[in-house]
């Protein structure tokens, strides 16, 4: 899984941080998303997917690497 965030679209609602604090953070000055890791560990995939789903600005994009041998789902 590869995660990208669009800091321009982000509206700083903080929902990704609530759902997946190991993957997302917020900038101190305005709460805009900070990506902590582009490739979260498999244990964090479900939370990361949920974060993308609940983002009000649809600012989180996931590309799932279906051929990765270590990917568990």
């Amino acid at each position: 899984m590869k995660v990208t965030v669009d800091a321009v679209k982000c509206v700083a609602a903080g929902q990704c941080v609530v759902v997946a604090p190991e993957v997302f953070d917020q900038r101190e000055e305005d709460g805009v998303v900070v990506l902590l890791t582009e490739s979260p560990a498999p244990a964090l995939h479900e939370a990361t997917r949920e974060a993308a789903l609940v983002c009000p600005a649809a600012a989180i994009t996931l590309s799932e690497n279906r051929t990765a041998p270590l990917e568990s789902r």
Partner: protein
Amino acid sequence: MTAAPSGVDIAGLPVFPAPRDLRFPLDPAPAYADWRRQEGLRKAAWNGFPVWVVSRYEDITTAMTHPAVSADTRGWLQGEADAPIFPRMDDPEHARLRRMLTKDFTVRRVDAMRPDIERMANDFIDQMIGSGQSADLVRAYALPIPSLVISLLLGVPYDDAEFFQQKTSVMLSRTAEDAEQQDARKQLFGYLYQLVGRKTKEPQDDLISRLITEHLATGDLTAEAVVMNSYILLNAGHETTANMIALGTLALLRHPREAARLRDTDDPAVIAKFVEELLRYLTIVHSLVVRVAKEDVVIGGQLVRAGEGLAMNLPAGNRDAAWTTEPDRFDTDRDVRGHLAFGHGVHQCLGQVLARAELRIALPTLLRRLPGLRLAVPVEELRFREDMSIYGVHELPVAW
């Protein structure tokens, strides 16, 4: 707050929000079941304006993220403020302004405030216990907590809270006279201009001071924009949460088994689920969220012409059986992810992390500290806020 446009015919249209059946005051208007079922959208009169009411969950999420649907209703709603306010703007200008306001509402900042909120909740309960065995929960608890929190954040002296609450309730009333509303508006904004003036001379560590030093001083924002957006935060910060605390308490008193579960748990995940279900079940923002079509667009099978208004029927969407099963049942085990109580899309509530923290503290603390909590009057005697933009109870007399 807004004036009906002349020459617009709303005769014969049902009113939005539709009247509730007050035998079931926690449920949305019965008419919404038909509005959800009917083909297309329901045309109704909102504050004297004709609007298409969007009542199905899926149609609401479509409308609130559709590029042809704008939040900038200033050209459509006569009498609205001309100053740019973030709920009434589209991106990218909306995002730019919103980000000037979000610093204090991040997950980290709200977490840091939790001990303060817990202390406030306990202090207000101490005061209730100290002054007898009954109180109006709205005045004694539900309103003071969020009011104090948002006053601290913005840097508005809490001593002025009562003045502010009184003027705001007139402005948000759907039945107050126009002249009365104009007067309240003038006094309130006069007060905020003075506050901005004082903070310009002596900035402190608060949101309004930061707007002044970082954005007013640089010409990013006008004084009017600082005042208008501060007003919206101040207002949204206490009206919504206060009504959720009071109405949420009433809902819990009417579901005693559930209330006992909430009282006896210290599992944050369980408390969070309770609060989310209360948000969905009560959806107190029952008539505030409107949009305008920028071009002809089809929403829910309805052709909406450019320039026509759309009203988001959030309570109806959150009770849509196409989205969640048995929607009229209060079920704290329900998966309510994606509920519409904070809106949907880029305008989703800026203060939702703070609101959740306040509710997750205020409701269980109340139940734990006052285990004998009960209504002090028959429920039929309660005055519900059908006449206000935010639903709730005007007073909630309780005893313990």
